[in-house]
């Protein structure tokens, strides 16, 4: 058995001595004198030390001494000995530097307490006085405290359910002297006997705050069969996201801005976003976690449709605290989709063009050059009339002699059918460095990860 000792009875005795302390008596000159109180069962060596190892030292009187006279198992207070009580607590954050608690949430704990063992602790308090008036002064101060009892605590710990007890005055022996006195004057001691119902407990278990990881529920339907969608479902039935402040996020040009709850964002022209609210300082959010945000180490994580996340380290723009500068982890950014044709296989385009206004001048064009078409070619406005290929959202490649359609958005029947889930196609425009994504449900090229993230779709890891 491993050793454990928490000084539980010692703490009760300490508090008992405290209760019996601070009494005083007044002499005829009106001088108050405090009465020393100590534990009664001292060793001979300590007694000699107190009197400076000299028989000439004079002991003081009056004095009060307390000591244990009994410790009995309290069978009348026995309860289920196997009962385990769990307490769930969240601590406030603690600033080690200042030694103060903060107003933010710290770690959470679950404390398991097993049923403590009941005992009755008997204590005696001896009051030694040198005259009757002195004794009555002391007694009058003491005896009014125990009506019917006096509560004491061994600790102020909220989760220590054994800390509370009470002191019951069981009996009073006013004097140990025999009356009348004989040839010798005996020491006059008033004896007060007390009982304290206490609990002694084994150690507790302190664990990380428990969260609901498993829900036990009926999996059968009315017919006794296992209900569909309960144990064969791949996706969780529900997800709960909590966002402090219900902030949204606008990611643009490697920066992130907070969007106030209910604030709208529009993109009147490509790459230009208009917001309906005022810029929000990031410190409004970060100040809720003082000292936690570390520039260049803390990360912002953006949720993707497939459940994975794009990760970027974050640092607040020193000249504009409404912006956080993002440095994306390239390993978390989606991989470009390799598109092949007769001249090359790669996941990039050289430019995005409007065929009605742009003429690529094929006479000087290098073979393998790729463009993404913004609109359908219009013969009337097509800038290069003799090479009419492709449609809006198609990717075309110059093979040295003619244009080839590398990605045909309209010809892809599966992609046209939005009911069929398809992996998105990612390409990067090497001219701007911006990545785009094509999904069949949207049927158009959109920026891969830049844009608006509503609450629940992004998180800040401090």
């Amino acid at each position: 058995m491993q050793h454990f000792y928490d000084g539980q009875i010692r703490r009760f005795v300490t508090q008992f001595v405290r209760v019996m302390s601070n009494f005083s008596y007044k002499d005829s000159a009106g001088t108050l004198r405090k009465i020393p109180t100590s534990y009664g069962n001292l060793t001979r060596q300590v007694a000699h030390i107190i009197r400076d190892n000299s028989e000439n030292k004079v002991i003081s009187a009056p004095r009060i001494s307390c000591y244990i006279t009994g410790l009995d198992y309290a069978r009348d207070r026995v309860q289920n000995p196997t009962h385990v009580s769990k307490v769930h607590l969240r601590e406030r954050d603690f600033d080690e530097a200042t030694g103060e608690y903060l107003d933010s949430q710290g770690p959470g704990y679950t404390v398991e307490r097993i049923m403590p063992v009941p005992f009755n602790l008997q204590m005696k308090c001896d009051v030694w006085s040198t005259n009757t008036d002195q004794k009555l002064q002391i007694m009058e101060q003491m005896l009014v405290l125990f009506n019917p009892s006096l509560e004491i605590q061994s600790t102020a710990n909220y989760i220590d359910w054994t800390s509370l007890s009470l002191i019951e005055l069981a009996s009073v022996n006013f004097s140990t002297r025999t009356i009348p006195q004989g040839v010798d004057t005996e020491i006059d001691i008033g004896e007060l006997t007390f009982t304290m119902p206490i609990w002694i407990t084994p150690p507790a278990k302190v664990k990380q705050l428990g969260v609901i990881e498993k829900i036990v529920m009926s999996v059968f339907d009315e017919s006794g069969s296992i209900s569909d969608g309960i144990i064969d479902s791949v996706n969780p039935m529900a997800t709960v996201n909590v966002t402090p402040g219900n902030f949204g996020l606008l990611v643009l040009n490697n920066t992130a801005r907070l969007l106030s709850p209910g604030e709208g964002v529009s993109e009147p022209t490509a790459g230009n976003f208009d917001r309906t609210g005022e810029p929000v300082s990031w410190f409004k959010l970060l100040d809720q976690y003082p000292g936690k945000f570390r520039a260049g180490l803390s990360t912002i994580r953006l949720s993707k449709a497939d459940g994975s996340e794009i990760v970027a380290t974050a640092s607040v723009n020193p000249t504009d605290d409404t912006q956080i500068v993002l440095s994306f982890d390239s390993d978390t950014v989606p991989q470009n989709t390799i598109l092949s044709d007769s001249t090359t296989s790669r996941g990039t385009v050289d430019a995005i063009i409007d065929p009605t206004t742009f003429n690529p001048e094929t006479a000087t064009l290098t073979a393998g050059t790729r463009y993404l078409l913004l609109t359908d070619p219009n013969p009337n406005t097509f800038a290069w009339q003799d090479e009419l290929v492709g449609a809006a959202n198609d990717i075309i490649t110059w093979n040295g002699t003619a244009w080839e359609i590398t990605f045909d958005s309209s010809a892809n029947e599966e992609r046209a059918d939005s009911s069929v889930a398809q992996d998105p196609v990612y390409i990067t425009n090497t001219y701007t460095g911006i990545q785009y994504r094509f999904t069949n449900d949207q049927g158009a090229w959109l920026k891969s990860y830049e844009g608006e993230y509503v609450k629940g779709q992004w998180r800040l890891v401090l």
Partner: protein
Amino acid sequence: MPRLSLYRPEKSADYRFIDKNIYESFQVGGTDIFVHKYEGPVDPGVDASTPSQPYGTNDIPETKIQDLLFLENRDRKYSDDVYTIRGIYNVQDLDFDLSQFGMFLQNDTIFITFHMNSSVENLGRKLMSGDVLELPHLKDDYALNDYQVSLKRFYVIEDVSRPSEGFSQTWYPHLLRAKCKPILDSQEFKEIFDKDSGEGTGSTIRDVLSTYEKEMQINEAVLNQANEDITGDPNQPVISGYDTKQYFVVPTDADGNVLTQDGSATDVTVDSAKIDASAVIKTPNANFYVGYLTGDGAPLNGAPYSFGSQFPQAASEGEYFLRTDYFPNRLFRYNRSRWVKIEDGVRVEPMTSDNARSQLGTFVNNTNKNTINGKEVEERQALSQALKPKADN
């Protein structure tokens, strides 16, 4: 020729001859004994005197009894002069008795014999119970302390009688026998212990000779431990109840959802002293950690608050305010329409503390004074003395 008889109705020359020889034997073979002469009890004065503890002077003050009910003299006066007389006694071995109150008592009763006539001549009266004797030959030079003086040895006379061996052939007594016990640092001998120790530092005999100071230090250490067990700080007095200030309360609404600051709120400004305008999570509207004696009147999660005897005119939602005119103090939280009670500050210093604010404590530790009908009246009064009728004659 008269009949031969050593006894005479009067003390004859034989008596005086023998008495001188006895006196001489005390001078040759006795030891000096310093006598601190008892001079009667302290007079209570006219105002404090009662029938059982009367005021008045006696022709022989030593014969006065201070308390006629309990028949004891608690507050004794001793002469400033110290009388030196010779005494003889048998030095005996001491047994230390660790008695039931936890301190050594010495089985140290000694019987000292004095020459009657010379002691009476010296003192002006016969030795009596209550006189304190100092035995200089028993000074302890090697006590374990750093005082500059040796520790003196004091005894108090319990009984005085004429010993049988003190009667001479003339049938007249020549000796006094005093039964002596070690003195205590008690109320009775306060004047003895208040005297200067001779150390030259202004210390008293109590300072160097009594265990009182060390016992109080031990008591103080235990009290500090009691403080630390409860508050974690030996200098922070014990307060009742349980400490929950280190716990975080997640503010929730009636549905259990986390309460956050409404972004459209317009009554929270950056110059508000009560609520940080950058705070997003609202202040909790109830304490999760409740139980017996958990209310301390402090706002939850360490939120800022103000206090006073009346609510502020303008308040923001979530603002805490402690009403100090309530007993116990009551903490409120403003919810836009009214101040809602959060908790009472029921954690107070317990009864035996000097600053006890428990119900019973306010009756005992009470220094309040009230002005009633233009007269200052102490609030704390003994029940037997409160509003007693005054003499109207």
